[in-house]
């Protein structure tokens, strides 16, 4: 069963007047709307959703990271609802999307979004591990692959890549390395790349 995101938005605004929550609509056939939450308010919103007796969103199923170098694209996928005057972001940013379910009321998903300020240094988002343990490895994965720093995470290390790795491979501007072992494949591009990397004496 799907969640009435619009009514829930009203409810959250009334209950948490200080939290920055805005409704984002999805124009596609799926129509999965979402709530854009200010990063700083995210743990409070999650805790409210989990602990309020008639909401009981007790199950954080999924945490996805998204890289938006072009903020206009982000708004095309999750458009600001009518009447919600949100200032258009100027630069690119990283986004983390949370999918919440209620195992008791058997409804979901409730989609929450949180955005970093930019893609370079101000990439902090408060961790929700203290509210939902299931975020532990998923936040580590997003830290690893996207470079979002989850403040308050108990054990924020790389998880899929090795510890010495420097870049964040899922970012859109990531450049794939060319230092792999060359094997004769039908593709000249592979050979060219390998030859560029291993300069012949």
């Amino acid at each position, binding site marked *: 069963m799907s969640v009435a995101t619009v009514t829930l938005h009203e409810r959250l605004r009334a209950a948490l007047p200080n939290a920055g929550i805005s409704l984002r609509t999805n124009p*596609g056939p*799926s129509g*999965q709307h979402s709530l854009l939450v200010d990063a700083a308010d995210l743990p409070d919103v999650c805790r409210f959703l989990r602990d309020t007796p008639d909401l009981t969103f*007790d*199950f954080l199923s999924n945490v996805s990271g998204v890289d938006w170098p072009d903020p206009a694209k982000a708004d095309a996928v999750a458009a600001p609802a009518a009447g919600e005057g949100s200032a258009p972001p100027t630069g690119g940013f990283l986004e983390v999307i949370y999918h919440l379910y209620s195992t008791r009321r058997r409804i979901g998903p409730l989609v929450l979004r949180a955005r970093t300020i930019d893609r370079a240094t101000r990439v902090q988002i408060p961790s929700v591990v203290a509210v939902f343990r299931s975020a532990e490895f998923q936040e580590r994965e997003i830290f690893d692959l996207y470079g979002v720093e989850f403040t308050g995470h108990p054990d924020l290390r790389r998880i899929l*890549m090795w510890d010495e790795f420097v870049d964040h*491979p899922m970012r859109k501007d990531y450049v794939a390395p060319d230092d792999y072992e060359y094997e004769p494949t039908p593709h000249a591009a592979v050979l060219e790349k390998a030859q560029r990397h291993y300069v012949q004496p």
Partner: protein
Amino acid sequence: MISDPATSLTSAVLAPGADDDQLLHVSLGPQHPSTHGVFRMNVVLDGETVVRLKPVFGYLHRNHEKIAEGTSYLASMPYTDRLDYICPLSNNWAYAQAVEKLAGIEVPERAEFIRVILGELTRLINHSAFAGFILGDMGAWGSALMYAFREREKILDIFEELTGARMMANFMRFGGCRNDLPEGWSAKVSRLVDDYGPFLDEMEKFLVGNEILLSRTLNVGSLPREVLINGGITGPMLRAAGVPYDIRKVDPYGIYERFDFRIPLGATGDCYDRIMIRFLEMRESLKILRQALDHLPDGPIIHPKAKIRNFIEGPKGELGFHLISDGTTRPYRYRIRPPSFINLTLIEDMCLGLDLADVVIILGSIDIVLGEVDR
């Protein structure tokens, strides 16, 4: 009942203690038969007792999500086979369904029936293989696994006849299935469904009363329900603890609401319950298969011819694909919610205070596949 399920781990265990020089650090894996692939656990032992356990991932990491974001939607389908290679068809199904929701494609009824049949056969494969593997973890290497694989092989032959490959099926398509059933295929499945019940009887006779199995699994690795839900545990692991959460019932996808089946629930969620739940689920799968085979309609198998997230109840838990489209032929964001990976979240909590030998059983009862954990 604990106050906040998210803080089930005591921080004292997480932080290094003062008497660390008395502890034994063991690196369990990555090449170890009980780790079900290349997977490592850094275990800290006090004598034989586990005081800390940190899983280490990434040995099989190939960044499937990045590859998928660089190719067309269809080209990712064969890669989904390789996520959880024990049950490729449920991965196919989840991905196909996600794209169908994204694009608003309808699936013909016959294709839905075929998908249910394949999905439940996959569940049989996964759970039988699980029964064999966990016995192997307990030291009964051989008989149980061979019996389970013998039956699995019969299903794989059926898959090969339909899809062309035993494991890397690449069969589901957006809006249906790739090809229609070959001549006599459903009769073969029907015979298999008839024969599977006796096999399960035999397997249960083989295992259920076994004193070694009981002493290795009873009251091992159970956690409170709230902690499991909070930790994102899904699938048979969660239902073994008595939480009636199965997406086939909670949010029926495909045509599952038409079938008459039940969701087996365990009581305590220990390793014994996790094994038994899978046996009971296989029997329910047989029921669904029987109904689906009896009512298989004729008709087309594929529909003639944003942002979405879609879940199915995979054999290992909640398998999800999260797709974001920007209108081009390639997905802008392609994310998998891998059940094996997230089910490992609480492995430390489950193992603390138990013996090292129990770690192997607990890991076995989680039923992971590293192709999916590392993606």
